[in-house]
């Protein structure tokens, strides 16, 4: 197997006495659509910050496309081809949708006109075409999530880290967004998504990692992972897996 696009080796990070991420290792091959799931407070977003360079790990190593990028600041990682989105959307609120996306496009385009034209193309890909000239601050939550995605996509990433792009959307909006993400992956972009909407994870991801209390407790195909007793316990509490098994036997 070729070396993975993203590799974590024993990555850890503590905040004071709290070990937010403990000894996490994972390999994400190029072209894969992976998902990172886990209960609230498991350390998923911290792990994203460690991958993208917003936080520096206390221990361990992050590799991207074969190069050691541990401690490299995020803007340099974006230039290498790794871009993240934010769970709590971060639009440039005073600027229009087009201008927001153009900031991402400027990573490759020096000319303003070229960046604005590319922004328009990207906006159409994620379904923001009709709202191009709206101020970003006036978008709905669903619109802002699309904008996060579009801005990241405009940097032409090799690896896209999506932090809960479906959170806060209603079922209809989720159903609209899932094909957008699938299409991005089909276009050759490796995607790693943090997601709570399990229906979407089952639908999209080829490989799932489960994080609980800062540690990876399971990984594999989505269907396997959701049957894993450790995962059930992490979500539903200690002893639940046994109780469920007993109930299944009894019936």
């Amino acid at each position, binding site marked *: 197997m070729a070396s993975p696009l993203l590799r974590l080796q024993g990555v850890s990070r503590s905040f004071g006495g709290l070990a937010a991420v403990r000894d996490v290792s994972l390999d994400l091959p190029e072209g894969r659509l992976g998902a990172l799931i886990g209960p609230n407070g498991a350390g998923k977003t911290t792990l994203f910050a460690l991958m993208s360079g917003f936080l520096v790990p206390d221990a361990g190593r992050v590799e991207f496309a074969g190069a050691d990028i541990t401690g490299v600041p995020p*803007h340099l990682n*974006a230039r290498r081809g790794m871009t993240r989105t*934010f769970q709590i959307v*971060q639009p440039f609120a005073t600027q229009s949708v087009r201008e927001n996306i153009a900031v991402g496009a400027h990573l490759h385009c020096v000319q303003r006109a070229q960046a604005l034209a590319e922004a328009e193309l990207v906006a159409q890909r994620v379904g923001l075409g009709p709202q191009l000239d709206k101020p970003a601050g*006036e978008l709905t939550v669903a619109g802002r999530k699309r904008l996060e995605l579009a801005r990241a996509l405009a940097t032409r990433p090799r690896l896209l880290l999506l932090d*809960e792009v479906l959170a806060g959307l209603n079922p209809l909006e989720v159903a609209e967004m899932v094909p957008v993400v699938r299409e991005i992956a089909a276009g050759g972009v490796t995607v790693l998504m943090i997601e709570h909407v399990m229906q979407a994870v089952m639908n999209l991801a080829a490989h799932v990692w489960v994080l609980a209390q800062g540690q990876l407790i399971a990984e594999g195909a989505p269907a396997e992972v959701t049957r894993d007793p450790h995962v059930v316990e992490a979500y539903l509490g200690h002893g639940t897996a046994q109780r469920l098994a007993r109930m299944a036997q009894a019936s």
Partner: protein
Amino acid sequence: MTMRRDLLQIALFAAAVAVVAATARSGVVLNLAMMALYACLMAQSWNLLGGYGGQFSFGHALFFGTGAYAQAMAQLQGGINPWVALPLAIAAAAAVGLFFGALSFRYGLKGSYFALVTLAFAEVFRILALSVPFTGAGVGLMVPLKEGLAQMQFADRRGFVWIALALVTLGLLATAWLRHSRFGARLQAVRDNEDAARAVGVDPFRVKLGAIGLSAAFMGAAGALYVQVFQYIDPGIAYGPHTSVEALVAAIVGGLGTLWGPVLGALALHLLADATRSLFGGLPGINMIIYGGVLVAIVMFAPRGLMGLGQSVRSLWSRPGAAPQTREEPHG
């Protein structure tokens, strides 16, 4: 708003002021035009860093004073022609801006901390200028009177109006460039959300450094112009806080992050100050009270400045149903 439209507006503005400069007979009008343009220049400088970069400096006098002293010292101690000294003064101010910008931004100083540290730097320079001999210490530096175009000294204000107009036009062009370039897009992205900008490949340190260098250059030009007009500089004038305040108040009153805000703000405040002084000249101090009152009113009723006022008035008519759609985002 396109680049072409910005350039057209700038050309119209420059042409209109040029007509005034060429035809005005009255010394009062010329003096008013010169002082207003000089205030515009400082407000524009502040707007480049504060309005487009979101970095609120309270110490722009640092750059003003450096430009002023460089202009005076180049002539007095270097024997350099003022026309040659002017670019040197601008470069000196930009260099000081880059140095203190690097110091502040390297350590991630933002918001009020950045404001305080710039205030402190300006004060440090004021005290230094008071204590070292080559700035003339407390006595200040006097540039001898040698009227003539070659000496950049003019019998009437007309010559200075032309120079100030050229500098203000350059400032407008620099602002227009910020509005329609990659550098400007990145600067505004950092202003609006630094983390989001970093995630898409923007280096905030570099962008802010560029902005403070550009801003300092224009403020240095204002300082150099001051020396040519008044032929005298001392530490209080050069590095005292009132210059910093004048620059930032005009920019904020006019409207931050706009092309015409600083020009409008500087003009409005200048006319207001002149009017109150001439109306209430017999009651010393009352002009400052009225000036302060108007400032308070502007900040209260037009928080986005005079440029934002027009928009607010327009939105009053379309208020029902125009409220932006927002929804609380569940935390997960």
